[in-house]
């Protein structure tokens, strides 16, 4: 089918080359070509990332920041060498602002506990949006429960856009912090974070941007954005699971108490008084995911080598193609049709439960996510129990979309 379709854009030929970099895409699924359409949950890994982790363990692994022997020095260099890569990747002003964490979830919890919680009094407010992932809801509920602060939620419009007027009206004298998702994992909506940050900063309120879905798909410039904190997970940026980044302005980080206590985050320890290391080490207690962080760096370099402008063009082209083709299927209902949207398509098909679609599509070699996507309040907002979600990565092509559409026709045949 794709042979007769117009070219996917200037990078169409590149996609084949990119696909060749991902070993898992060479493996058939149920005897069919794997159409992996769940990169918003976790992306597949290119060979260079797999090699980076293996190379670390096979040739130079040792614990970091402590051994005087060469292996430890090499591991330390490789690990610390990822900070400038991240700095460049998100255009951070200072590599000391790059804190390695387990992922975006830990980053948000860290900010909630170490930055926001100490400033909260009963009646204070934390503002989020109605399209947040549970990871950007529950950490705030925990600090609210502990302090008597209130969680305030900016509404979402019917097409999946953020209600900016509603958000503006909810930033007031009691607002202490705003935490907002950059790109919705369920709707694909790209939020106007610069405008949100301006509104908050006018009231002197700092802002965290949850970049779990933006870092893998678009250029990120934390300085141009104006954010106070930004975070993402390596496993969505083609790196390993269990590693991620919290970026925070140094002026905030330097005054924040540690999130966890342990080794590697101290200056001196005595039973009377312990003094803490400077950021970022202050927030990296214990032995970190050394090889994971190193491989995360390789994943970010891989994205840079593909080029993020080219990547966004490719994924937008696929999104448009998918919305067109899926929209032709009778009974199709999209959840999330904002004008500014990343490569995420959430939908329902009349008369068929998403779970049944997921199973049938799997048999056709098509991997999609079905369920609430860790956004239960958003599901309630749209009054649906679950959706099917197809999400794109840089290795997806029109054949993947065609396989999805063919699979959905099979679903309709079956349940029709």
């Amino acid at each position, binding site marked *: 089918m794709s042979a007769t379709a117009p070219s996917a854009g200037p990078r169409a030929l590149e996609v084949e080359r990119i696909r060749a970099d991902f070993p898992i895409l060479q493996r058939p699924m149920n005897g069919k070509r794997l159409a992996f359409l769940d990169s918003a949950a976790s992306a597949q890994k290119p060979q260079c990332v797999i090699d980076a982790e293996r190379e670390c363990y096979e040739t130079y692994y040792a614990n970091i920041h402590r051994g005087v022997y060469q292996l430890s020095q090499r591991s330390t260099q490789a690990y610390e060498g990822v900070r400038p890569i991240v700095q460049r990747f998100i255009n951070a002003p200072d590599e000391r602002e790059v804190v390695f964490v387990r992922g975006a979830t830990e980053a948000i919890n860290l900010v909630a506990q170490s930055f926001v919680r100490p400033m909260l009094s009963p009646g204070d407010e934390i503002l989020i949006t109605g399209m947040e992932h549970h990871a950007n809801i529950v950490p705030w509920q925990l600090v609210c429960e502990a302090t008597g602060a209130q969680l305030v939620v900016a509404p979402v419009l019917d097409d999946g856009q953020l209600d900016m007027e509603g958000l503006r009206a909810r930033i007031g004298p009691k607002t202490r912090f705003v935490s907002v998702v950059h790109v919705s994992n369920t709707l694909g909506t790209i939020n106007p974070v610069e405008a949100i940050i301006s509104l908050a900063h006018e009231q002197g309120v700092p802002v965290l941007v949850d970049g779990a879905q933006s870092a893998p798909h678009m250029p990120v410039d934390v300085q141009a954005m104006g954010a106070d904190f930004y975070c993402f997970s390596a496993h969505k940026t083609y790196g390993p699971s269990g590693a991620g980044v919290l970026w925070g302005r140094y002026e905030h980080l330097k005054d924040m108490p540690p999130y966890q206590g342990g080794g590697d985050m101290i200056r001196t320890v005595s039973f009377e008084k312990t003094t803490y290391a400077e950021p970022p080490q202050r927030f990296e207690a214990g032995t970190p995911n050394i090889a994971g962080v190193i491989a995360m760096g390789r994943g970010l370099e891989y994205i840079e080598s593909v080029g993020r402008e080219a990547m966004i063009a490719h994924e937008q082209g696929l999104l448009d193609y998918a919305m067109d083709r899926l929209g032709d299927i009778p009974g199709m209902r999209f959840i999330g049709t904002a004008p500014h949207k990343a490569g995420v398509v959430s939908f329902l098909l009349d008369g*068929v*439960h*998403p*779970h*049944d679609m997921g*199973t*049938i599509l799997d*048999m056709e070699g098509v991997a999609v996510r*079905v*369920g*609430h996507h860790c956004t*239960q309040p958003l*599901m309630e907002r749209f009054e*649906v*129990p*679950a959706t099917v979600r197809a999400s794109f990565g840089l290795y997806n092509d029109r054949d993947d979309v065609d396989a999805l559409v063919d699979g959905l026709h099979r679903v309709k045949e*079956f*349940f029709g």
Partner: protein
Amino acid sequence: MSDLRELYQEVILDHNKQPRNFRAVDPHDHEADGYNPLCGDKIHLELRLDDSGRIEDIGFTGEGCAISTASASIMTETLKGKTVAEANALFDRFHHQVTDEASELDPSLGKLGVLAGVRDYPMRVKCATLAWHTLQAALEDRGEISTE
């Protein structure tokens, strides 16, 4: 496609489209809500026991996937006239049938056997057992269960 037919047998598709006993039971003496938070399935089950402790009437409402809807539908059909002890014994055999990948088809399950294909799909077992867990919650007056 043959795999698909193995999982989604005609009986299942039929019960999904036209669930039996898809209604409230009035009056009822036991009820419970069952949730599968993973996929958003919800079921509300009501039943009435007669003087001898047999299930006189049973019905369900809610929304779910084809597997959970058909399972609830076939369960209500099967259980009418059974004692609570018989229902529990049936659930034990049914549970074994849908969870043990090596299990042979158990002829004593009757129509419930059409759900045996679920044993090859571990992610779908909770869909097939939601109604049964809800039944147990109703009989034990626990009010609400969640399969996560």
